[in-house]
């Protein structure tokens, strides 16, 4: 039994929205980070779905790129978070507002 494509896409959209809301409302930098991962994987799901739907491998190929970029991002992002924590002793994104104009 195959689940029809719209269901995959709906799941992707739900995951993306969840991740987005997480980025917008959560205060912990780590949770924000996880939410971003959720968004990325939602996009991955959409890529795979469309690739299967249209019978091409472009989308699946792109997923690997996204995975690699996400991995790199995790490394750099976590490093930044650790650095921020060292400097400011917090990972609350609301306490880090150095860009305030």
């Amino acid at each position, binding site marked *: 039994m195959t689940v029809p494509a719209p269901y995959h896409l709906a799941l992707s959209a739900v995951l993306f929205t969840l991740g987005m809301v997480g*980025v*917008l*409302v959560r205060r912990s930098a780590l949770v924000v980070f996880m939410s971003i991962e959720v968004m990325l994987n939602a996009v991955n799901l959409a890529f795979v779905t469309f690739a299967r739907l249209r019978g091409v491998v472009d989308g699946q190929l792109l997923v690997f790129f996204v995975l690699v970029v996400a991995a790199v991002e995790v490394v750099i992002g976590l490093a930044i978070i650790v650095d921020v924590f060292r400097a400011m002793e917090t990972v609350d*994104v*609301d306490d*880090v*507002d150095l860009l*305030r*104009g």
Partner: protein
Amino acid sequence: MLIPVLAVLVPTLPLAGWALNGLWGGRFTRRTVAIVACGAVAAAFAAAALLLWQIRLAPPPGRAPAGGPSWIVDLYSWIGAGSIQVPLRLLVDPLSVAMALVVGGVGLLIHVYSVGYMDGDPGCARYFAYLNLFMASMFWLVLAGNLAAMFIGWEGVGLCSYLLIAFWFTRPAAAAAGVKAFLVTRLGDVGFLLGIFVAFGVFGTTDFGVMTRDAGARLALGGGAATALALLLFAGAAGKSAQLPLYVWLPDAMEGPTPVSALIHAATMVTAGVYMIVRLHAVFLRAPAAMDLIAAVGAVTAIFAAAAALVEPDLKRVLAYSTISQLGYMFLAVGVGAFSAGIFHLTSHAFFKALLFLAAGAVMHALGGETDMRRMGGLARRLPRTTAAFAIGALALAGIPPLSGFFSKDLILSEAFRAQAWLWAVGVAAAGLTAVYILRAFALTFLGADLRGAEGTAHDPPPSMAAPMWILAGLTVAGGGLGWSFTHPGILERFLLTGLRAGAGPPARAGGAGEGTLVAASVLVAVAGIVVGWLVYVRRSLRGGVPALAGLLSHRFYIEEAYAVGVIGPVRALARVAAVADRTVTDAAVMGLARALGRSGQALRGLETGYLRHYAAFVLVGVLLILAYWVSR
């Protein structure tokens, strides 16, 4: 051909004197400075005399413009831009040679006089350098062959006038008077400059020969172009020759050394306006309305300045007003078309007014620089020769026959009568006033009680100063012979007529009963003036006068006050306001723009909260907007 060489030498010799004394005068001895300066002018005068001899001898060349013998000496092309070509050109003709002789002769005498007068002044070399530069400029002015080239000399003499008035520059009054002279004459020179432009528009050139030749063809009689050109040039002449309403600088110019007053502000520079009008008489004759105005301005200036001289307490300033008044006569003459009469009076005035100034200078020399007549008196006994010289000049100025002033003034008055009777009446009235004021000056200075008592050691001037005075006195006595005889035009007039076109000069005079009556009338008025002056200022038997009128006169009808209130004050205020407004309005507008940009930046600062989620939300909104755009398209 000797003429081009001589014509070039006349202005360049004094120029060389200027360069020598100006650059190395500080290292020369006093004697060397004097020899260089006087030698340069003497050589120039000799060259001018040779020029006279040459043009009487040489046949007129073919390229002479219509109307008389003239020689053109082209030096080089000065300014050129397309059709605008201004060559540096000298024009040698009877008029320019006659002027060069007057300038050179009087100039030489005054140079010699200056050697004695300026003896002991530390700025002697500078003085003679300026004086030589003046001679060069004035020679250039009278010899120039086109208006633009003449403008070099025209402004050059103005510069020297400024430099020499402000010669004792540490005296604030002298410095201010120099600036005033320069600025007022420059105001008139704006007219001269615009006149040059109009001439370029009409004739395509400012060459005197071409303008004279083409005036009839290019300028409609009484037309707008002719009138504009004549009036613009007259504005320049009125500034330089101190006519109403631009006369205000000349009385103040008396702050300069007295020989300067004699040379520049009596005999030569101030007559440049008259000379220029005579030089361009062909143009001026095409504008009768302008000519009427010139005559009227001349007549009114003559009587106005004579009246102002009546109450002036300063001896030199009396002579300055007298000069303004006599220049008025000259403009009256040229305004009624009596060009050679104007030049005749210019010449005789140069003699007797220079004489009067030199005598006044001798008085100042004797009294240690005093010019206020209220502190003089009784000098006749101490300075008998100076007194005699001044008396000769005064009688000539008053128009007593047979001195030169009588002949030239009478000639002008009879020409004026022929033109318009009211001009004659004003002229005669001014002549009466002239007699009164010069008698007053003579009486206050030389007659009456000796106010200085025994303290004075005043004595007649040394020979180097006396000799020029006596030569000028001789010229004053004999000068009448240049221009007047009973039946036919005089020597000067005939000489000039070869240069002034037929019809430009006055026709041979009618003579007869009318003429005699006019002469008698003017002599009578002059004598009456002297008698009145004698009664008032010497016998003091006729007293009174109207205080209000005296007040009006001593303020010169409040013309200078009107300038101060009506022109200088507003301009100064405007400049101050503009200077402040430049900061508070123009600059403030720019700075305001800068501040507005800064403020808009401040306003946008609020968007940068520094909260990560806000940035993320912005990104989201942006993505949604782009999506919405794509979907809706």
